């Protein structure tokens, strides 16, 4: 399944970068994280609890931030397993400065689904991924506002 989207954040790229590179803030912005444990440099063991319509399950696996090009881009890699199916993702994230104090965050990548997640098809999973990415941007926005304050 192909994923793509973008969103403008009211913060400059270095600040967005710092928020995403920090384990504690990352745990707050990625939707559904109930456990995040650093196992290496920008490499984590994670548990995500996701309840969205038919997608209702606990995902365990790895998250990794790779190809780090501070402060402009990185790749989010993840292998997440659950009883309702596995997801294997590689998503390129670009941070583009807009004006003097804004950032356009854009993502693009591919998620390989298996099991029931795959059988639900694009129609359902497309909606699920849209909702998750909206949550991600909202959480990130909130996190950036909090640190400003």
């Amino acid at each position: 399944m192909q994923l793509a989207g973008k969103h403008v954040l009211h913060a400059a790229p270095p600040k967005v970068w710092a928020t995403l590179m920090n384990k504690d803030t990352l745990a707050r912005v990625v939707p559904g994280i109930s456990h995040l444990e650093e196992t290496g440099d920008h490499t984590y063991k994670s548990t995500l609890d996701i309840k969205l319509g038919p997608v209702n399950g606990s995902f365990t696996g790895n998250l990794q931030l790779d190809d780090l090009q501070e402060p402009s881009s990185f790749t989010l890699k993840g292998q997440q397993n659950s009883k309702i199916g596995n997801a294997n993702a590689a998503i390129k994230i670009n941070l583009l400065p807009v004006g003097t104090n804004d950032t356009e965050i854009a993502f693009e990548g591919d998620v390989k689904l298996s099991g029931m997640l795959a059988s639900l098809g694009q129609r359902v999973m497309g909606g699920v991924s849209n909702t998750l990415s909206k949550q991600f941007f909202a959480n990130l926005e909130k996190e950036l506002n909090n640190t400003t304050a």
Partner: protein
Amino acid sequence: MSTNGLIGRSVKRVEDKRFTTGHGNYTDDIILPQQTYAVFVRSQYAHARIVRVDTSVARAMPGVIAIFTGADLANVNGVPCGWQVNFKNGDTMKEPKHPLLVADKARHVGDAIAIVIAESKDQATDAAEAVEVELEELPCVVDAYKAVQPGAALVHDDVPNNKSFDWALGNPLEEVKEAMDKATHVTTLEFVNQRLVPNAIEPRSYNSSYDPVSEKYTLYTSSQNPHLIRLLMCAFVLGIPEHKVRVVSPDVGGGFGSKIFHYTEEALLTWCSKQLNRPVKWTSERSESFLLDAHGRDHVTKAEMGFDEEGKIVALRVKTYANLGAYLSTFSSCIPTYLHGTLLQGLYTTPKINVDVTAVFTNTTPVDAYRGAGRPEATYLLERLIDLAALEMDVDPADLRFRNFIPPFDGVQQPGYQTQVALQYDSGNYEGVLKKGLEMVNYPEVRRAQQEAAHNGKLVGIGFSTYIEACGIAPSAVVGSLGCRAGLFEVGQVRVQPTGKVSVYTGSHSHGQGHETTFAQIVADKLGINLTDVEVVHGDSDSVAFGMGTYGSRSLAVGGSAIMKSIEKIIEKGKKIAAHKLEASADDIEFASGKFTVKGTDRSIGFGEIALTAYVPHVYPKDLEPGLDFSSFYDPANFTYPFGCHIAVVEVDKETGKVSLKRFVAVDDVGNVINPMIVEGQIHGGVVQGIGQALFEGAEYDENGQLTNGSYMDYCMPRADDLPMFETASQVTPCPHNPLGVKGAGEAGTIGSAPAIVNAVIDALWSGGHKVKDIRMPLTSERVWRAMNELIS
């Protein structure tokens, strides 16, 4: 002799009282004392090595009774394939083990890795989620053609090129090529007959128990053929004594072929029931049903049809890659071969035919018979080719068929028709059904309306399909010589009770076809008694002597004929009893309207009194056994060959590509008809399934072997508002070789309908100048729109 007119009458179905009032009794309704429930842990990958299965946490969970994995079943056989097909060079087909649980690697999404058995289904579900499975995903193959190319991943490590077998039938290829070279026009078509999900309304369900005292097993199964399941499970899988196994198929909510096969779960539950000394039940979830019920079709084909200057077909050449999925299902090997290649004569006098089939393993759900089974694929191939040829040669498609039809023959005065592809048709009047269809649709008027529509910028099309099928499956000696590992006879027992009421035991199984009505009509008609005095019993191996079950439109032609044989024996014996009582010779007794009469006199005895005498034999022939109860095995002399003509009229929206089915005309010749209402119902249901394939349905796998439309959100089934009122009619050409003259009607609708729809859409597109040869089914708006627009640009 017809005596009370029950044969041929649209009697209301006796089974519908329980079905429409919620009193059906399905396998999942059966709850046994000490019942346990099973849930499976299944592979999420299409192809993966099993690295580790850890059941320790799950075993300790509440209610869990046992968990078994592939390692526990290392010494248990897999489920067998029932039909051996040989390679062209004579080698036996590749038939890798189809294990009850996989131990080494999973070969399709849904392959079972472990079974969890608990006190309740919820507990089993929770524990199954706690089974830890580590899988190493492997490269996979999905498409049949790609799977045989060099370098493709191997589904079974010991099956080179993923080829189960290759196979050919018909005239030598050189002769076909030579004839094709002389053709003045050759129509070539490369197409896909897409994979379908069977979608029976009742999901598969099994409940197996073992009694340690009697050492007897009982398996309740949602099967179309309980005796066959017993035979396969006892003799080939578990090696348990057949007389200690009772298999019951109670009410079954539709099968369409998908419940013919012996599934791994049936045997596994039976095995588990003995390990635990408790009954074990499993009912498929709908999502499992999408992934595990054997799929249908899935052929990739290239076909060429050559014509001479008069439009006579001179040669047909076919190459098909048939996707069998990950394992050989029970009858999977005979579908693309003996139920497909043998039908490529169609209704035409084609003198040279060669068909070549490569049967391929892929990392997908096993593929087997689905309503029509091979014959829809053959019909689609022929009927698409001939309609396309008519467009290419600018001749009328109906006229092109008339030029090529085999002339009428009744199989009695005129002999049967020997085809180039092994079969001998029994009787036929092929031009008759097309003539009737043309009248019904008012062909000149449709063509006039099409021209007018084209003038107004609209796309209207008419498509034909004149089909034949081989049904009444099947003469045992013939199918045996072709590799079938079973006989395909049927058993019918007629037990007249002392009071003259009749119990009929049939090896045919009813799962929607209405046997309890149709078979009772035959018996009541022939014995001259009331319909309510006949009860039809089926589906229980302890009460029915034997049976090969219901598929291939065989119940009436084979099962009904077995009952007819027993009826004849009842009447024959009744005559002897009557002769003794009437002090006449048995030769002088005639039976009609429920009465045994001395010929030429008014001295007679009613059927009821003869029945009572047979059981209270006080005044009775000395050399005659008491009782009035006969069982017969009937092995058909030939297949039966129903045929017909389906015509579709469609309108295609130029802007969106949306296809609207405006009319559907079906003229079917299924031989003699016992219950016209039931036959019409079968035709309607079959036609809808064919329309489903043409316009709506199709299992879609992604390149990782994941089924991406495994739910009703994405797998589109036809609905009532997608369909016009069907216009149906029947023609009757009796079958010359069975006592009822019947041919079978279960599959006709599905076999004939899909190509008529697609042909109509192609015709509509040509009427607007879009010379499209093929659009892949299902014909979604997007595909039709793309086909129109790619040619324009």
